[in-house]
């Protein structure tokens, strides 16, 4: 503390303006010619790698730090565990499959398309079995949707925990799915589609994850998907067939989908009672909290993405999404929520999909408390942590869609913090 000085803001700004001017001059007027320009480089002279050297391309080696990562001590075994998408290092909205987060309850399984069977039974006229090829004969659609684990940001209920947006917000991915509407399969089997019926869906892996979906949602936008971002699903995301339940918590997106049963009540399986229910302050719990409410986070700058260029023009960038529909506005604050300015959207958001936002701004070099606040087309405004805690207490793990704060210091280094 005694090393701190306390200049007036004006004095500080003078100082940083000089710094900024210096760095601009440095950038504008190079003293020595850049050898990368003046000298013949190997890559401009020798030939490069031929076609087919790598039949399926991986990111160039300089990007090998951009990978999903786990936090080993969070779970008992990596077979029943989670890892996190490197959202700090991505831009745009589509998540490449290879770095999209994984969540398994009994590990990812290898199943051939030839061994794939999908059964529809229960309250149907004709219980049916489909092969993989059968599914590809049905009318299919393309949609971009986000998939967020209900536990994303869950640790933050107890305050600022892990220092990195990959770890606080990385249980999310966003892909373009190709799939058959679940509605089509229900109708093919002559299912009882009255509104009090449920559609129970179950996976083929050892965890046998099963969830109950109310009929209204099942008939709406749920997809039986077999491609993501144009190619086959990855093993870790349920190859060859997974369920896509737009806007609803990731646990319902059953992987390796093997059975659809029409029932007259919710099964109340393990994953919809003992897990994925939200304990409130008085000890009662909310169940069937399926929708992921509107949420946003600044991905850069963030703890893994410091501002490296010093004061001056910079881009504050992040992601916003809502399980209720479209994101139509994101506001950014640099002072912990005292004042806000509306950011620009990278493009008009798709419904129930990630939307990219940018704030092109001049950084004066002073510390910032960066926050983003999303609004969706229902008029819902992303709440503060305080608002959530007042409403629910801190006993829950799931559905934390609070406004996140990064403290950015004068060196441009960001840290996960909680503010008053």
């Amino acid at each position, binding site marked *: 503390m005694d090393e701190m000085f306390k200049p007036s803001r004006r004095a500080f700004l003078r100082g940083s303006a000089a710094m900024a001017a210096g760095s601009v001059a440095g950038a504008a007027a190079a003293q020595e010619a850049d050898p990368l320009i003046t000298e013949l480089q190997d890559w401009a002279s020798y030939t490069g790698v031929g076609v087919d050297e790598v039949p399926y391309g991986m990111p160039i080696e300089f990007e090998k730090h951009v990978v999903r990562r786990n936090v080993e001590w969070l779970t008992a075994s990596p077979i029943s565990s989670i890892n996190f998408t490197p959202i700090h290092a991505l831009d745009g909205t589509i998540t490449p499959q290879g770095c999209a987060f994984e969540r398994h309850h009994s590990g990812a399984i290898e199943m051939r398309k030839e061994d794939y069977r999908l059964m529809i039974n229960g309250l149907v006229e004709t219980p049916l079995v489909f092969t993989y090829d059968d599914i590809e004969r049905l009318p299919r659609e393309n949609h971009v949707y986000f998939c967020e684990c209900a536990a994303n940001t869950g640790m933050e209920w107890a305050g600022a925990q892990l220092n990195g947006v990959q770890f606080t917000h990385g249980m999310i991915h966003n892909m373009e799915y190709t799939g058959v509407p679940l*509605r089509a399969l229900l109708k093919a089997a002559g299912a009882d589609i009255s509104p009090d019926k449920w559609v129970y869906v179950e996976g083929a892996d050892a965890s046998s994850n099963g969830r109950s979906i109310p009929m209204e949602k099942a008939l709406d936008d749920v997809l039986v998907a077999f491609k993501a971002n144009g190619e086959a699903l990855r093993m870790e995301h349920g190859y060859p067939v997974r369920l896509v339940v737009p806007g609803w918590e990731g646990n319902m997106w059953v992987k390796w989908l093997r059975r659809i049963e029409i029932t007259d009540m919710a099964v109340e399986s393990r994953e919809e009672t*003992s897990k994925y229910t939200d304990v409130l302050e008085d000890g009662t719990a909310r169940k069937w909290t399926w929708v992921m409410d509107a949420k946003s986070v600044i991905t850069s700058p963030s703890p893994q993405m410091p501002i490296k260029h010093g004061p001056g023009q910079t881009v504050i960038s992040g992601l916003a999404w809502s399980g209720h529909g479209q994101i139509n506005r994101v506001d950014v604050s640099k002072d912990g929520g005292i004042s806000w300015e509306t950011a620009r959207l990278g493009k008009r958001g798709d419904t129930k999909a990630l939307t990219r936002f940018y704030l092109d701004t001049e950084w004066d070099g002073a510390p910032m408390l960066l926050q983003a606040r999303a609004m969706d087309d229902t008029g819902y405004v992303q709440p503060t942590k305080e608002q959530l805690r007042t409403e629910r207490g801190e006993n829950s793990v799931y559905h934390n869609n609070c406004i996140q704060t990064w403290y950015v210091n004068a060196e441009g280094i960001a840290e996960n913090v909680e503010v008053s």
Partner: protein
Amino acid sequence: MSKSPNIFIPALGGTALAVGLAYGVASRDYGADKIELLETRLGQVEANAMTATEKAKAEAARAAELEARVAEMHAAAAERSAIAVNLTAPEIDGSLAIGRPALPEEIAAWDVDVLPDGRGLPAGSGNAFDGEEIFVDKCAACHGDFAEGVDNWPVLAGGFDTLGDKDPVKTVGSYWPHLSTVWDYVNRSMPFGEAGTLTPDETYAIVAYILYSNDLIDDEFELTRDNLGTFEMPNGGGFVIDDRPAQEYAKWRTEPCMENCKEEVAVTMRSVFLVETPEEGGSESTMNHASVEELPTFSAAGPSFIPVAAEKPREDAPAETPTEETEAAAATEPTDGNAELVAAGEKVFKKCKACHQIGEGAKNRSGPQLNALMGRTMGAVDGFEYSAAFQDALDAGRIWDEASLAGFLAKPKAYMKGTKMSFSGLRKDGDVEAVTEYLKTFGE
């Protein structure tokens, strides 16, 4: 468009320079021919300047034209994107001849879920007395002998009166609303790594033992298909259906504040864990000892002070001394001929992975790490809590070799009576040999 004014600058500068030059030379005593020459040159310079000005104007006009054209293209694209297209897939009905009818025995094999009222349960029964033995055998490696949970594995018993705490202990007894869920989950998904192998009676008995561990029944209570669906769980009434629309959405669908939303903002908590993201993947967390006192508060005027750049503590990381395990873990190349067997063994090893780690950085889990297994004394891995059976084997100096491993893996409980390993054994021909070859690649 913003660039247009700049284009004229060189042209105007040129004219000014030329005029200045003419004025300076004319005032001196030069010969008329020189003046004439200079005037001619001045004329040329002015003509050049005029040409440059004209050229710049023309360039600016062309640039403006191009920008206008781009704006037109953007407008046209926006218009095109608004044109209605058919995005609706055709609806399907029951007349579709895709898929085939499911056979009754197929439905019976897969449709085993149990509803809260007990529908879906098979005939059978079990009590806690029988359940204890099965539980200790098949479940305790992860859940503990008394369902208290080992390491990070789920606690199944106790936790009553904790649901109102910040860290509620959500066990079968304290939290699960329906007993049907316990039966259904144990039957379909447990034991971890050997799902779907329990008989109905075993499942009834395990569920009874879990209830007994929670003091909800005595050890003679016989759990059956007929009383399971009506069994009342302590937290059966503890759930409400999602009421966020009424409780939260109604409040939070408002026009948000943009200016002077707060007087002052202070940092109340800093990240508990700093996270390193090493090149080889994963992450390393360390405690963050920084204090909130070091940070400024914020008001509309900005931060209260600018903290001095902190000297980064550069501890010399202790050189990693490779342990025996990690050295051994550098997998040796399989010799020619058995590569296929090793590959097959790797697949077989999936059955073991739920409890055992192998390879670089392998740690003890519910089972000991398996690096350099061959030739190792049984029960000898540091830090693993072995059963009495393996402690005896250690004392007797018994060694893992192909024969002992084959015997153990074929029938673990018969070979090593009292082992905690809940695995029932490798049954397929060749699996033992394959997995042994695979294990050998991690050192002997």
